[in-house]
């Protein structure tokens, strides 16, 4: 009997050699005359263990990792086919504490199924949500989503049901569904993992949205930085068409839904919904003033649902298991699960899907295991480049939209970037302004000009030129950008800047640095020695 062996095709797994491991396993098996079926699954999201290889045994799936190409022959010698013990053996995958302590709803299938097998998708509960939706009136679908408490996972946290309800009630000859997969925040990779590991859940979520609001065309807007995700998504769409889950007669319902995936071109601002619509229409990704809301005048001037990919990927399970099932997870006004992405200087970086409400400290220490370098943690940036830098004293903040807002922070898309005590927050504040200057679409003055002035002011603060006056000026500038910018880029960049000033004032009060020294080989060598992860 053929033994199933799983080697992920997720980009992060590929980035540490999964392709070579897959090839080595195939050739080792064939030279030993063993019959294997190699499945290229998505990632389980435990990236420090990648490439994570799994073998299907009578006792379930047994995990080994991190597996290098060189270790493959030894695994075969050690009886890896029977799931026997080995230095790299992690035991049954489902029993690994990191996974076992999670509540995987949106990521229920990611890393488990073959992402390009629609049969596998259906066998693991796929398309049950759509089947349920097809028995309901559009308004009942919208009500279910509203009752589940699902809020936009892109960062703004707007109730999804309200958005859908608006589109449903606008009279128009064409409605659209747009999936925002322009995941540009540093520290985030949940969208990428789903596109590479469970693409059909995005297609199903969008199809349900389309049926709810009578849309017949959908677009997924992804990133050129994600070439593997783009190709997987394209192939999954083609497969869904072949099997009658997209096109003129979705799942035999007589309803039409067409879907296409498009690529951005390296502009962070296109993650903002109106910029994304401009870009999809073939224009510069400059934001549109609101109103009109995209729900009323969106893509090509038509009513459009614009939802983050994780939002849409959460829809099928809500339709399948019911609004209450989903709503019972979470705290306060943040219902369901959050896909936390542990990143940066972290020992056990990866995806943690948990009900809202676990503390930042729990995420970083219970799951993440602290810093990768082993040095003390000094700062954490949650929510991407527009999120605040929190010091250690704020680590007990629960991961919840309102709790973060109350501490002048932002949950955003759930990215958690950890920094050790070598970080210089004045530099990070400067980078925030620099990033805003590079990525500003140029539409409004506070963001376009303010970001460049911000870099200059912070440079003067670092150089110890009239420090007190310049700190006041920075505060003033940030207030103006917050109040006067048209969108979240200029409007939120003051969060990382002012949180750095507020929580780490000592970094803005150092002697002016000497001119940068020329880096030489000896310095790099000693850098490697003091930073063993290199």
């Amino acid at each position, binding site marked *: 009997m053929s033994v199933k062996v799983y080697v992920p095709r997720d*980009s*992060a797994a*590929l*980035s*540490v050699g999964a392709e070579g491991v897959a090839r080595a396993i195939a050739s080792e098996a064939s030279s030993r005359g063993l019959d294997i079926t190699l499945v290229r699954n998505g990632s389980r999201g435990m*990236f*420090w263990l990648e490439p994570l290889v799994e073998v299907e045994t009578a006792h379930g799936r047994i995990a080994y990792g991190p597996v290098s190409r060189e270790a493959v022959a030894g695994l075969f010698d050690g009886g890896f086919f029977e799931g026997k013990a080995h230095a790299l053996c992690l035991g049954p995958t489902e029993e690994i504490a990191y996974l076992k302590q999670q509540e995987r709803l949106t990521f229920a299938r990611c890393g488990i199924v073959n992402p390009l097998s629609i049969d596998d998708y259906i066998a693991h509960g796929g398309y049950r949500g759509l089947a349920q939706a097809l028995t309901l009136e559009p308004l009942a679908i919208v009500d279910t989503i509203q009752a589940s408490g699902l809020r936009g996972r892109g960062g703004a946290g707007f109730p999804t049901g309200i958005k859908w309800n608006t589109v449903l009630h606008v009279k128009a000859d064409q409605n659209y569904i747009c999936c925002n997969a322009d*995941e*540009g*925040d*540093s*520290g*985030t*990779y949940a*969208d*990428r993992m789903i596109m590479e590991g469970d693409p059909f859940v995005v297609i199903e979520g969008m199809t349900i949205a389309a049926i709810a609001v009578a849309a017949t065309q959908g677009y997924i807007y992804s*990133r*050129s*930085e*994600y*070439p*593997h*995700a783009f190709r997987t998504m394209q192939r999954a769409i083609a497969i869904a068409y072949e099997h009658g889950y997209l096109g003129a007669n979705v799942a035999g319902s007589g309803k039409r839904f067409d879907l296409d995936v*498009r*690529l951005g*071109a*390296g*502009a962070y601002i296109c993650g903002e919904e109106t910029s994304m619509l401009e870009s*999809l*229409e*073939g*224009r*510069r*990704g*400059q934001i549109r003033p609101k109103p009109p809301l995209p729900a009323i005048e969106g893509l*090509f001037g038509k009513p459009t649902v614009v939802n983050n990919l994780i939002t849409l990927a959460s829809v099928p399970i809500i339709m399948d298991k019911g609004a209450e099932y989903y709503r019972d997870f979470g705290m306060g006004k943040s219902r369901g699960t959050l896909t936390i*992405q*542990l*990143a*940066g*200087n972290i020992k056990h*970086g*990866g995806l943690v899907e948990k009900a809202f409400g676990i503390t930042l400290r729990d995420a970083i220490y219970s799951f993440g295991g602290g810093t*990768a370098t082993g040095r003390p943690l000094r700062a954490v940036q949650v929510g991407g*480049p527009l999120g605040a830098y929190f010091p250690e004293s704020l680590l007990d903040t629960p991961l919840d939209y309102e709790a973060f807002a109350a501490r002048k922070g932002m949950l955003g898309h759930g*990215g958690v*970037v*950890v*920094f*050790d005590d070598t*970080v210089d927050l004045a530099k*990070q504040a400067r*980078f925030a302004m620099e*990033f805003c200057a590079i990525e500003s679409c140029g539409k409004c003055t506070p963001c376009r000009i303010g970001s460049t002035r911000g870099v200059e002011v912070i440079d003067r603060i670092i150089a110890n030129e009239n420090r007190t006056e310049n700190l006041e000026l920075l505060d003033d500038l940030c207030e103006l950008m917050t109040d006067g910018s048209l969108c979240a880029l200029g409007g939120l960049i003051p969060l990382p800047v002012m949180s750095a000033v507020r929580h780490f004032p000592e970094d803005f009060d150092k002697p002016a640095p000497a001119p940068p020294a020329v*880096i030489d080989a000896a310095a*790099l060598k000693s*850098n*490697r020695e003091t930073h063993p*992860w*290199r």
Partner: protein
Amino acid sequence: MSNLLAWDADRAQARIRELEHLPGALLPILHALQEEFGYIDAAATSMIANALNLSHAEVHGVVSFYHDFRHSAPGRHLLRICRAESCQSMGCESLVQHVEKRLGVKLGETTPDQSLTIEQVFCLGNCALSPAVMLDGEPYGKVSPSVADFLIDSARRQQ
């Protein structure tokens, strides 16, 4: 990357024709041309403008807005180094300095032998394995200076 074609107006016209019917066709066309030639030749602007019934200025405005689109041909290989916060926390700035020093070129430039272009990128979505780079569309994680050297050397040895 290494199989880029030299600019060819007929070939470009054919690619434009394949895609011009799409709603919002401009970005798909620009991606197709850059995939083919590695950059957007100035001559493409008026061809696209004619095909989509846009002004020359509108097309130029789009090409120049997006960081991805190049105005001249890159080297045979392309190394993109992430400089976003997650990679910063794991020392990407010293990685950038190392690569620039070794190659004698800055980010956004091509080595004199045309073998390699290096660019900055803000986030490759590989933030649990920082610092991250992408070489010719393939991702690499936990990239130390010596791993970067290895990648650069093997790419430059290929044609």
